[in-house]
């Protein structure tokens, strides 16, 4: 038992560095991406295809940042979660492409 307590205390020490800082940076990054996305659309008059591509790219960056930092996916021992979510994403892409490019046209 003493050993368990010791390792728990050690672990606490090891994790001390993980403060709110990187989460706040992820938040600011997300806010910036959101502002840019809204500003691009609000400004208008830009090439539509370019806006489409940029919007999707920024959404994907934001999702990677949020899932990586806030849902701890970048941490160790997250292989199964990644497999689980990627399985879902794979199905989604299939469905979206099917609906958009195959069933509708």
């Amino acid at each position, binding site marked *: 038992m003493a050993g368990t307590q010791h390792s728990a205390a050690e672990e606490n020490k090891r994790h001390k560095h993980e403060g709110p800082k990187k989460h706040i940076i992820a938040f600011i990054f997300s806010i910036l991406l959101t502002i840019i996305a809204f500003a691009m659309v609000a400004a208008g008059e830009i090439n539509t295809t370019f806006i489409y591509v940029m919007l999707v790219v920024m959404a994907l960056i934001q999702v990677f940042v949020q*899932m990586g930092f806030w849902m701890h996916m970048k941490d160790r021992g997250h292989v199964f979660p990644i497999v689980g979510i990627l399985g879902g994403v794979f199905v989604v892409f299939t469905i979206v492409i099917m609906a958009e490019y195959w069933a509708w046209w």
Partner: protein
Amino acid sequence: MSGHAHVDGKLPHEPEKATLEGRNKVLGFWLFLGGETVLFGTLFSAFLALRHQVGDGNPTANELFELPTVALATFILLTSSLTSVFAIQSMHTNKVKSMLWWLVITVIFGLAFLGLEIYEFNNYVHEGHKFSTSAFSSSFYTLVGFHGAHVLFGVLWISILIAQVLKKGLNVVTAPKIYVAGMYWHFIDVVWVFIFTVVYLMGKVG
């Protein structure tokens, strides 16, 4: 099962992963989120396929959507995601009180988001954009409404968890529940990122 974790009244670091049950809960929740991804994916694909099917004289996405309202809702939900991160961090440093306060703030932001969405939907209905108006309106309300229902569920869930922690305290049984609820809240935020991009911004572009 939880007894031995309280030998000196202190929780282990990351109490949500201290027991096998807790770890299984987190893993199971990831698989659930995979399923949720598929659910929202189907709704997105339906919306993408139908978003231009407006019909004669019915309001289009470009006419309906007001970016300031959507931007405000986005910032509210983003901030609530951050406050739920703070709640988990407080949990990891065993500060129960501050964890509860961060959860309360998260719930309040969630309610503000819901209020804004109800106000927005109400406006749309008054502008003749009802559920059965067009294929666009049906798929819009199904997708965005489903997300709103998830926010409502999250608000109720986190509220009940706050009550449970007040009653039973933070231990290796309640900690995984808080952690999993935090994951759920982030997932809702991630879905909203795609909604404001695909539905609102792309709808505004045309």
